[in-house]
């Protein structure tokens, strides 16, 4: 017991002397050198957090768009092998009466084809300027309140309830917005706002006027064609008001799983598939998200290794150039442990400063800035994902790596023969 107490006291003395030496060494060494080391630490920390954050954020932007512009918090779709959601009016009625619901939108979805410039065709066997896709019937007011669809128009105007002959076309169905060649992909060419197009759904064909083009970076909008719900219902003969999709947005802080359970308890599960937004994400998106997360971690790990090596070199050079003084300190009776502590404290100081400034840069500037000005990727508006918990874990990792990287060179130099160190042999 007494020996343990003595050991603790010795450790405490070493800590105190180490801190005393480190503080003065940092305070009285070159401000430029300190600044440079801290700058390297800041960059390393940013590399650890931001690279992964951007990679994940790229997908996060995509999934967030999927959630806000299409699925909502809870998505209700038809059961497998069913063509629509049976008993839809009852489900919609339940949703309307739920206190947690902020907005919702229902959609009729049917496969179809849209054809443009058919009037200028000279021969019957001439290739038609057409494309196949999902034709979606919407209530424009509900949809706009739910997804802000009107804000996603790149050309033209939004639809209103009187536009029985109006049509909105997703930008990815148009050559001028998606100029790529891919097997099986046919795009509409030379279509402008105000043009007349022909829609064929379920054997029925009608002419429409193009009201506008939608571009949201969400496939469920950009690859679809929108008409009024009443129009599509008439075309497909859906007189029972059964819809194909219901997207529900919840009030903030409402748990989607709780609402899903409530819907299932109300019997929605018997005629529809009820999923929270994350359950409804396409699998490939989840796979890419995981892959990008992994990539981010790999890049971050390399950054961590580079930071460790940097600190190792900095401390090693520092310790080597101060070898004589390390020898002198040992010569006058300062314990090796205290000298090692001094170098560890210096490493901790550099890491702490780098991390603190890094936190400020990330949460004081980068996150709010990128949130306000998302990075425009072709398939999503990328944001910077930097959860405080994950950032703190990375800060801790960097701190541990720095302590080890600071300790090893100090140990190497301190272990050298005292007299050799003093005499520089």
């Amino acid at each position, binding site marked *: 017991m007494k020996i343990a107490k003595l050991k603790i006291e010795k450790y405490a003395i070493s800590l105190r*002397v180490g801190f005393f*030496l480190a503080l003065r060494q940092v305070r009285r*060494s070159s401000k430029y050198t300190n600044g440079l080391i801290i700058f390297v630490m800041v960059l390393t920390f940013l590399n650890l957090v931001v690279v992964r954050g951007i990679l994940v954020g790229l997908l996060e932007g995509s999934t967030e768009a999927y959630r806000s512009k299409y699925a909502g918090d809870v998505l209700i779709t038809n059961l497998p092998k069913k063509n629509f959601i049976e008993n839809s009016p009852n489900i919609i009625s339940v949703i309307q009466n739920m206190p947690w619901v902020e907005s919702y939108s229902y959609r009729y979805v049917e496969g179809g084809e849209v054809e443009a410039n058919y009037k200028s065709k000279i021969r019957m066997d001439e290739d038609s300027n057409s494309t196949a896709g999902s034709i979606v019937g919407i209530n424009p007011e509900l949809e706009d309140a739910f997804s802000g669809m009107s804000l996603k128009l790149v050309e033209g105007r939004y639809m209103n309830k009187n536009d029985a002959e109006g049509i909105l076309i997703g930008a990815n169905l148009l050559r001028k917005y998606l100029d790529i060649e891919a097997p099986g992909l046919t795009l509409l060419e030379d279509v402008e706002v105000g043009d007349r197009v022909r829609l064929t759904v379920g054997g029925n064909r009608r002419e429409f006027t193009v009201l506008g083009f939608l571009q949201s970076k969400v496939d469920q909008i950009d690859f679809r064609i929108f008409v009024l719900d009443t129009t599509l219902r008439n075309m497909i003969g859906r007189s029972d008001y059964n819809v194909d999709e219901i997207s529900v947005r919840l009030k903030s802080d409402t748990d989607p799983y709780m609402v899903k359970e409530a819907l299932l308890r109300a019997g929605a599960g018997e005629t529809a598939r009820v999923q929270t937004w994350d359950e409804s994400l396409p699998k490939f998106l989840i796979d890419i998200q995981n892959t990008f997360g992994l990539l981010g971690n790999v890049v971050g790990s390399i950054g961590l290794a580079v930071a460790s090596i940097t600190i190792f070199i900095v401390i090693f050079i520092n310790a080597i150039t101060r070898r004589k003084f390390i020898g002198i300190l*040992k010569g*006058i*009776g300062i*314990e090796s442990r205290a000298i090692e502590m001094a170098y560890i404290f210096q490493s901790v100081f550099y890491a702490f400063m780098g991390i603190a400034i890094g936190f400020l840069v990330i949460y004081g500037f980068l996150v709010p800035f990128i949130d306000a000005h998302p990075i425009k990727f072709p398939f999503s508006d990328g944001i910077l994902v930097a959860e405080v918990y994950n950032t703190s874990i990375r800060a801790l990792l960097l701190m541990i790596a720095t302590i080890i990287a600071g300790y090893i060179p100090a140990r190497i130099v301190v272990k050298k*023969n*005292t*007299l050799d160190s003093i005499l520089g042999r």
Partner: protein
Amino acid sequence: MIKVKNLVKSFQSGEEDLKVLKGISLDIKAGEFVSITGRSGSGKSTLLYQLGLLDHPNSGEIVIDGTHVSNLTNDERTKFRLEKLGYVFQDYALVPELTAIENTAIPIMMQGKSKKEAFAVAKRALSRVGLGQRLYNLPSKLSGGEQQRVSIARAIAHDPKIIFADEPTANLDSETADTVLKAFIELHKQGQTIVMVTHEPEYVLLTDRVLKLSDGLIEV
């Protein structure tokens, strides 16, 4: 205070084994001021390093203040130096980032004293060597003589049994060297055991006893 028997130290020079100390035996009493002198390469500094536990002899026995120090581990040697020995190096050997008082206080802090206590003791030690007004100057702001006096203050502050000084006046002009030597004489008068390496004949005369080294042995 110091008993040495058959002390041998050799260095490897290429394939040759260069014997610097060839079986030295000596006895230094408590309170003695002993100078070690000799020509360059005679082994006087090497002897001081062995006595001061900064180096390991190849063979022989050293007993300091009743402790057989030859078999101590490195950590034990460090502790022994902290408790019983003080050093004054030829080139002052002050830590450049520490002020005069901090340089002097650091061994006292290592002994377990609080910073406040250590600074009080360091202040007294610096006042003893006439540097009471230069406590907070960094070594770079002190003259050579002042730096050496800080070095002496650091050596005496933790109240060691023996002070080892390795040519403490070698880098100083004669006037400053006199001041430094006066500080040693003053310490000696107060009963301090001092072992000093020097090749200045006039300073040798001021010590109680001279150990003249020649070819790795003490001349009788």
